């Protein structure tokens, strides 16, 4: 009777193992498929492709740690797999049971401890190195809100030849190459996280607190990033880009950002757009130097309409390549590729060309002006009751097609 039960168990085990063995190739193919899915030739947010000193420090730490962790993982999984197969239930007698093996337990305690100490020492060293701010050469402030980043450059001697007048932009941060940039970040509403994977690790931006992250780009280029702390309905659409350009190009960019306002020529569509902009948009969006028909400055008061109390400054919108929290491109795909794929020595030059009428991605810009919430989810139905009627982003203004044409023409001159 006992032998019969043992034989049945052995038969059942062998059958199960045979079935598993038949499915093994499927499992291997599926696993490799998953692995392959993580590969990409053109991955702008590749943390394993550092483009600056700080990202390189992270790379120098993460690669050996990943290798070490991988070796440990393979050993552990291999031993577990071996035990599962070798000692599977085949109806054999239960082996002699023992309790405790001091030598083995000591080894299995000390070995992981040594590995962790080995990982901790360079990790702490890297963290301290990334936290260094003594060599800062340029300070830039970023402020997060649902769902875009405001970037401002305070008055300073740094950032190349210095900044004598505050520069305010959004979505894209322009930095000079080879310069130690210190980003001072905070948030106006909820917790966001600033991350440009190729330039440094991520850093939470918390309301009421100021956090730092260092950036430094070796070569000119456009480095993509996105918010990495879930921050609401359009969290996935809260992107940002850092444009690194040669110091000379950066000087040109700074001059452009502080240039005087130039009103559209009278009788043009853009001139009509200016009036429409004042009537429809200037309540929230600031354009520096814009005056009304009486010559009085037009001052935006976003705090009266928007929950975060801030909106992007549109003074030089068309010097940027993106809009609406860098969610959408101001350039057509061809023109954008022309900038993104440019060799490092010409990236700055291409970027400084701004958005020409031919390159304007007017389709998405018009869609945005037609009904912004339909283009980028910004608040759930009924959410306005929680914010006292203030919107979390741009509302549907109900603009006519003529008004949209006028505003697009006006904005196109903001460069």
């Amino acid at each position, binding site marked *: 009777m006992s032998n019969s039960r043992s034989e049945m168990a052995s038969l059942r085990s062998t059958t199960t193992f045979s079935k598993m063995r038949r499915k093994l190739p499927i499992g291997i193919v599926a696993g490799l498929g998953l692995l392959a899915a993580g590969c990409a030739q053109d991955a702008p947010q590749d943390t394993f492709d550092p483009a600056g000193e700080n990202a390189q420090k992270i790379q120098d730490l993460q690669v050996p740690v990943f290798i070490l962790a991988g070796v440990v993982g393979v050993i552990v999984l291999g031993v577990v797999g071996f035990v599962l197969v070798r000692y599977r239930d085949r109806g054999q007698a239960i082996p002699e049971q023992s309790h405790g093996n001091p030598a083995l337990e000591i080894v299995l305690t000390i070995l992981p401890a040594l590995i962790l100490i080995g990982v901790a020492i360079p990790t702490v060293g890297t963290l301290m190195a990334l936290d260094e*701010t*003594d060599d*800062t050469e340029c*300070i830039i*402030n970023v*402020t997060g809100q649902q769902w875009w980043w*405001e970037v*401002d450059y*305070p*008055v*300073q*001697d*740094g950032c190349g030849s*210095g900044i004598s007048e*505050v520069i*305010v932009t959004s979505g894209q941060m322009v930095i000079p190459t080879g310069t130690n940039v*210190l980003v*001072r970040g*905070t948030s*106006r509403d909820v917790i966001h996280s600033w991350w440009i994977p190729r330039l440094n690790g991520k850093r939470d931006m*918390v*309301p*009421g*607190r*100021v956090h*730092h992250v260092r950036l430094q780009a070796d070569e000119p280029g456009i480095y993509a990033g996105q918010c990495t702390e879930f921050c609401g309905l359009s969290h996935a659409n809260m992107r940002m880009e850092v444009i690194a350009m040669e110091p000379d190009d950066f000087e040109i960019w700074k001059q452009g950002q502080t240039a005087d306002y130039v009103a559209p020529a009278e009788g043009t569509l853009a001139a009509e757009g200016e009036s429409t902009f004042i009537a429809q948009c200037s309540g929230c969006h*600031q354009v*520096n130097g814009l005056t009304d028909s009486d010559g009085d*400055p037009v*001052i935006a*008061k*976003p*705090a*009266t309409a928007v929950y*975060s*109390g*801030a909106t992007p*400054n549109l003074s030089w919108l068309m010097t940027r390549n993106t809009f609406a929290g860098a969610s959408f491109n101001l350039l057509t795909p061809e023109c954008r590729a022309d900038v993104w794929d440019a060799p490092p020595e010409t990236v700055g030059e291409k970027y400084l060309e701004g958005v020409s009428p031919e390159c304007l991605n007017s389709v998405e810009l018009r869609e945005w002006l037609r009904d912004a919430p339909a283009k980028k989810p910004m608040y759930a139905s009924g959410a306005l009751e929680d914010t006292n009627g203030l919107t979390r982003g741009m509302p549907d203004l109900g603009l006519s097609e003529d008004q949209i044409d006028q505003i697009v023409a006006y904005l196109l001159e903001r460069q």
Partner: protein
Amino acid sequence: MLTTGSKLLIGSAVLATIAAIVYGIDQGGAIGTVGLASAAAALSFLAGVNLLTRDANVFADDENVIDSCEAADPAPGNSIWPMAFALGAVVLCVGLVTYPAVFIVGIVLLLAAGAEWMTQAWAEQASHEAAHNSEVRSRIANPLEFPLAAAIGVGIVVFAFSRIMLWLEKVGTVVAFGVLAGIIVIVAFLFAYRGGLRSRTAIGAIGVAVVGLVAGGAAAGLDGERDIHPHETTAELADEGICEDPEETEADHNAAQSVGATAAVAAELTLSESGELTFEVNGPIPAGATALTLPSSNLNNVLFHNESSEDRRLSVDFGTKTVTHDGEDEVVANQICTTLVEDGGVQNMFVEVGLPSSTNPGGYFFFVPGVDTATLELVVP
């Protein structure tokens, strides 16, 4: 003989009537008075019906039989819970038209009396033996009653204690309760070393102390709290238009203890002995920066360190603003400020600005009233 149900309804009707009279005289509210009077009328009507039908109990009138026969089940014992339950219901109704606190007391009383009533009624059906029933009731109810009673008792003592503390002057509070604590220690010491002390004596002493404390608390509570200097907010100071004044308001000598002083800050401004106003931020300051930059529409936490030898306040000037007084627009200074901060003190100020500094012709700037050299430009992009 009045039946139990009739007693409940009559009691409720009387209390509702009293409540209606008291409310009508004291509060003068028509709706509340009518509501309570209606409740009294309805309860009176129900009491009448109940009296007429004798609780719908055919044996209720047959008093001779009841008096002469041995009961199959023991009669319910005396209970205060029906009356307490009725009182709770009336207090609840009074609370509906007066104060939320009265309403909450009514609910608590109603629930407590109901629970006690049900527990007692249930326990009285446990057996024919009253002693056993009483033990059953105690076993069920005491684990809940004792901690609750203890909590209520401690709460009353603590509340009375706090009333006395708030009634006494600040220094007097320290002295009085220092002395009290000393007395407690001495008495406890005597209790510990006088082994022959009877428990009745100890209970008596503690009882007297508790009664004294509660009586003192009640008297102090009725007399009200001492004058407590309010910690004025920056907004209140701005409304009073004193942000340019170096004197007059009382210095907040506890400013450095405020939570904000240890919270995350956007900037720290220091007034030096020489009258210079300098700033620091978390991390390096931009080289060559002569102005502090803070984001707009953001709750910026700014700490003011007063290292001068006099009480000083930090103010921020945002230009002017228009306010409406008695239907007329008036242009006033748009400023916020801290209270006066003592020498060596620290105080927090929230700076939240909706508009960029470029929108004000003179820009924004920090300043210290009475110290002409202490100014610092504030840039809001």
